[in-house]
């Protein structure tokens, strides 16, 4: 059955059959004047008080001047109920979609159309500061799980008619509502169309988190080419640069594209802090990125293959420490790093009361005992510890950094310093060869644009930042696509 039937019994029986064994499905039959009617809704998604006071009460008390189903529906629509969200539905799938989204649907006998009323009233988490993107000077608001609330958070910040939200449904079974948001006067229509095309090609059954969709928006690569944020102010800033956002119901994380590599080093605080300090912290992050990826690999490479590169005193210290340990330096680094990752994973998954125990065991066993027992050397421990701490400065890059770090330890251990540098060149080719929605991933560094360096090499003051536009579609090399052999 695709379209609604004229007969109420037929419609109700069919929909009841679809919801067999669904205890949250509510069907209430009553009379509207002389016309038999049924109200369908889902428990937990609607406000029962709202339904009783604003729908059932007026309906039952209304004096309907006709006994024709279609005329009754029109009368109700125009004179009895005046909900803000009200829609006429003619197909079963529309009815089901509205019901799943917290609407109450009114069906009348002798009428092939239904009326849906917005009566959402489900429990939702309040707007709160996101733990993953804390800001020192700025808003404390973060996205929540209901996408309508998220839309309002954006609208409150961008009071312009150019801000558009296009509704979409993703997930064959979950039918997750999502909103595509962009500034019409800034966003590139080509990027919007590409995004829509890729989303419509998504064959996921359920979309339970924003991360599910990232793989459908861009091909898999070491570094993410889809941006994630839990902050409405961050997303507003991105929309102002011509990016397209995607708010998905049920997750407090919004996606946005195109996403460039340099954005991994930009935080909301950079723009609230003073330029000289923001520039300093940004450089700190660039250095931390290189240390986090290459330091253990270079240490292993130098210690194992090219020790003459080290200053004499440092060389002696490392050589003495290494002499007392049973493992080669590469294995030692891998073991230490593996142990750290195990502890991190355990710390994340373990119930909170046990978290401190993980820290104590890890700190004592690895920090103290392993060195004093002569299993690992103190310099290796220091290198891994420094690497791990530097990795925390760029949380967005944690996943690729974790994998690359291990890879470079292996490369350094096998081939030495030149192997690490060759690996770096490969990484550079990989980064330079990628695009995010036709915008070169490494832009504006490669291809280079000097004017864009005001927000890459330094964080210029706002007076300078607002002087030039920074739309992604104007980035050097944008829109050319890639040509392979």
């Amino acid at each position, binding site marked *: 059955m695709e379209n609604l039937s004229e007969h109420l019994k037929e419609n109700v029986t069919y929909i009841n059959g679809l919801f067999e064994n669904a205890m949250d499905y509510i069907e209430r039959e009553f009379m509207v004047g002389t016309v038999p009617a049924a109200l369908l809704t889902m428990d937990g998604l609607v406000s029962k008080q709202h339904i009783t006071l604003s729908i059932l009460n007026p309906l039952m008390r209304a004096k309907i001047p006709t006994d024709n189903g279609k005329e009754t529906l029109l009368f109700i629509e125009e004179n009895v109920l005046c909900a803000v969200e009200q829609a006429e539905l003619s197909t079963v799938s529309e009815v089901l979609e509205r019901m799943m989204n917290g609407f109450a649907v009114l069906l009348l006998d002798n009428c092939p159309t239904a009326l849906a009323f917005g009566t959402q009233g489900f429990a939702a988490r309040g707007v709160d500061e996101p733990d993953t993107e804390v800001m020192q000077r700025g808003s404390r608001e973060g996205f929540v799980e209901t996408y309508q609330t998220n839309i309002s958070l954006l609208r409150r910040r961008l009071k312009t008619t150019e801000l558009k939200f296009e509704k979409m449904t993703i997930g064959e079974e979950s039918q997750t509502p999502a909103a595509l948001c962009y500034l019409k006067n800034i966003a590139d229509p080509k990027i919007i169309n590409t995004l829509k095309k890729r989303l419509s090609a998504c064959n996921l059954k359920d979309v339970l988190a924003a991360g599910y969709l990232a793989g459908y928006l861009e091909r898999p690569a070491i570094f993410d080419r889809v941006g994630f944020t839990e902050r409405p102010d961050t997303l507003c800033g991105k929309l102002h640069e011509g990016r397209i956002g995607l708010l998905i119901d049920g997750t407090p994380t919004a996606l946005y594209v195109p996403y460039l590599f340099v954005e991994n080093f930009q935080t909301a605080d950079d723009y609230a802090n003073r330029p000289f300090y923001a520039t300093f912290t940004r450089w700190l992050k660039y250095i931390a990125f290189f240390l986090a990826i290459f330091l253990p690999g270079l240490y292993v490479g130098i210690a194992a293959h090219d020790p003459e*590169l080290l200053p004499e005193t440092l060389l002696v210290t490392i050589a003495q420490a290494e002499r007392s340990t049973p493992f080669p330096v590469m294995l030692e680094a891998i073991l230490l790093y593996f142990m750290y990752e195990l502890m991190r994973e355990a710390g994340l998954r373990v119930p909170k009361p046990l978290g401190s125990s993980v820290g104590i065991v890890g700190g004592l066993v690895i920090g103290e005992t392993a060195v004093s027992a002569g299993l690992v050397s103190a310099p290796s421990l220091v290198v891994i510890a420094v690497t791990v701490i530097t990795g925390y400065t760029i949380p967005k890059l944690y996943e690729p950094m974790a994998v690359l770090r291990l890879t470079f330890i292996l490369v350094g251990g096998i081939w030495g310093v*030149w192997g690490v540098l060759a690996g770096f060149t490969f990484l550079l080719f990989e980064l330079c*060869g990628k695009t995010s929605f036709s915008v070169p991933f490494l832009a504006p560094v*490669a291809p*280079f644009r000097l004017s864009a360096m005001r927000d890459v090499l330094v964080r210029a003051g706002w007076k300078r930042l607002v002087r030039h536009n920074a739309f992604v579609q104007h980035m050097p090399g944008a829109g050319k696509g890639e040509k392979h052999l």
Partner: protein
Amino acid sequence: MKTKISALQLYLMLFLSRVIVSITINVQTVGGSNLIESIFSSLGLFLYLTVFSLPLFVLHKSHPEASLLQIAENNCGRGVSVPMSAIYALYFIVMNIFSLSLFLTLLVNTTDPVASRFSIVLVVLGIALYGAIRGIETISRASVCIFTLFMLGMGMIFLAVSPNVTPHYLMPLFYDGTDQTVQGFLVFTARCSSLAEFAVLMPFLTSTDTKSGKSHRVLGFVVWNGGITVFLGVLLFFIVSCLGEYAALQVFPAYTLASIAEIAGIQRLDALFIGISMMALIVRIACGLFCIAVCMTPIPTRPRAWLTALIAALTAVLSLWLTDSAARVGAVFRTAYLLPFSVLTGAMLPSLLWFFDCIKKKRRRAA
């Protein structure tokens, strides 16, 4: 739509491609004993490139979307363009083998005698092939980053060795005549594949580099050519003034210069030199492989990629075989063998094609 790169990207890529071979110059190859005179050889190359780039620029202006090989096909038919493509492809293969062999010799004979040549070749060619398959945009974008690192690294080495500059090591110029300068010019010319690369990569250049629609290709060429000459001049000055007669005994004086550098307790910047040289070498080989692929344009994309991979494998095998013995490398890569090849692809064929193009235009006008 054909992928386009900016003039800046192309010239930075060509800079790395040329400099990596130029910095391997030594007294043994140029003859004589005063390396500083090679500055004049490099000036000679500057003039040579300026003169013989003219046919390429003129052809590019009248056929902006065509490479030299496509222009040959349009003007002279497939009977000329196919052998010409084969000559260019062969030239790039030879230059890739030459560059890789030179680097292997440097790494194994000077830095790390126990290094596995097989691993080095595998890694370097693997990365270069990956870059070539990703396309010219990838190579040129990576070149911008590698150029920055290269200049920073070399700047650091120059800064570190500057206290060792001893002016009295600088010998009077042309004391033994100009033979060494001439020989140096021939060596530089034989090893310079820039004109051939430019001939093949011309259509990939964007027609506008600025918002006003202007192109920087001519200005870029002058800056690139001049910049590389100045860079070599500075390098040769430091080599001679820091190493003195010791430079004449070295197979790779630039490497020796890096190995005596010491900055803030960090000794031996030769690892840094090897690192940045290898990165530049990867760009050169990737650029060469891409040029080979362009020479094989009539072949469909997928088989062409496989063929390029096969050529990369052949390059690996031949480089390993050649570097097995130092005498073999010396015998195969003589200036006398490389020079005609470089002049043919860089100067003669473009000039001839320019000549034919002019005649064809005149006939068309007359008709």
